[in-house]
């Protein structure tokens, strides 16, 4: 039963991600990537990670992808045509195939791969908000603070970059 759920989400994720990189219409690309995000959220739920799954939907599908959609609509981008750089496609596929080797080696080298995780997980409350919150504000306090500062920098940076008339790039 669980395997069927896994296969369903995995096939949806892989099929939509492949369709995404082949799709010429940017709006469809965004929608396909949202499909990938949502099926990954489903996999997170199967791994007892409720909080991460819902954060995936709220932040990724609900905020980040809306930003993409927004920019594509604003710039009114149409379909992509053939590029200046002729050998890009074959070269890209070749490089990706080369990248396949180390990634495959890494997956294969993991010794505990065949074992299944313990059925009861990490005990009661695994992956729930209380546990994650406690860790975030004790053990991982410094990374969280740094991430907060990073977000602030990103906000200020985005505003400064897109302000009209104040930034002059090569004019």
């Amino acid at each position: 039963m669980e395997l069927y759920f896994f296969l369903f989400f995995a096939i949806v994720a892989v099929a939509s991600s492949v369709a995404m990189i082949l799709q010429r219409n940017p709006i469809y690309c965004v929608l396909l990537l949202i499909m990938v995000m949502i099926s990954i959220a489903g996999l997170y739920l199967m791994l007892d990670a409720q909080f991460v799954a819902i954060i995936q939907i709220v932040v990724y599908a609900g905020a980040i992808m809306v930003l993409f959609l927004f920019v594509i609509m604003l710039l009114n981008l149409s379909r992509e045509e053939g590029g200046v750089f002729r050998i890009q496609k074959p070269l890209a596929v070749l490089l990706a195939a080369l990248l396949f080797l180390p990634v495959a080696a890494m997956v294969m080298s993991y010794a505990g791969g065949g074992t299944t995780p313990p059925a009861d997980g990490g005990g009661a409350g695994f992956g729930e908000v209380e546990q994650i919150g406690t860790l975030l504000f004790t053990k991982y306090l410094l990374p969280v603070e740094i991430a907060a500062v990073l977000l602030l920098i990103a906000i200020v940076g985005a505003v400064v970059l897109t302000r009209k008339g104040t930034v002059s790039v090569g004019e």
Partner: protein
Amino acid sequence: MIPVTYYLVLSAVLFLVGATGVLIRRNAIIVLMGIELMLNGANLSFVAFARQFGMVDGHIYVFLVITVAAAEVAIGLALVILLFRNRGTVNIDEVRSLRW
């Protein structure tokens, strides 16, 4: 339960598809989306390992990766808008001049 290898293979596949997307596409926005896909692939293995070892720390990393991805997208899309405003294109191969 499903063996953790299944999740690892899936996350590797998603990572590679994302990487291919980054290399194969010319539209800067789609390239950014390919990077998001790669991050998602990595996140999946974090969560799978968190379940395997019964440690929530993996979830924290996913949390931080999502935060960084949000920051990256904000800046990346601001740059794309700037690029479009100045050059009238978002295709990365048409932006070849180092200065003008």
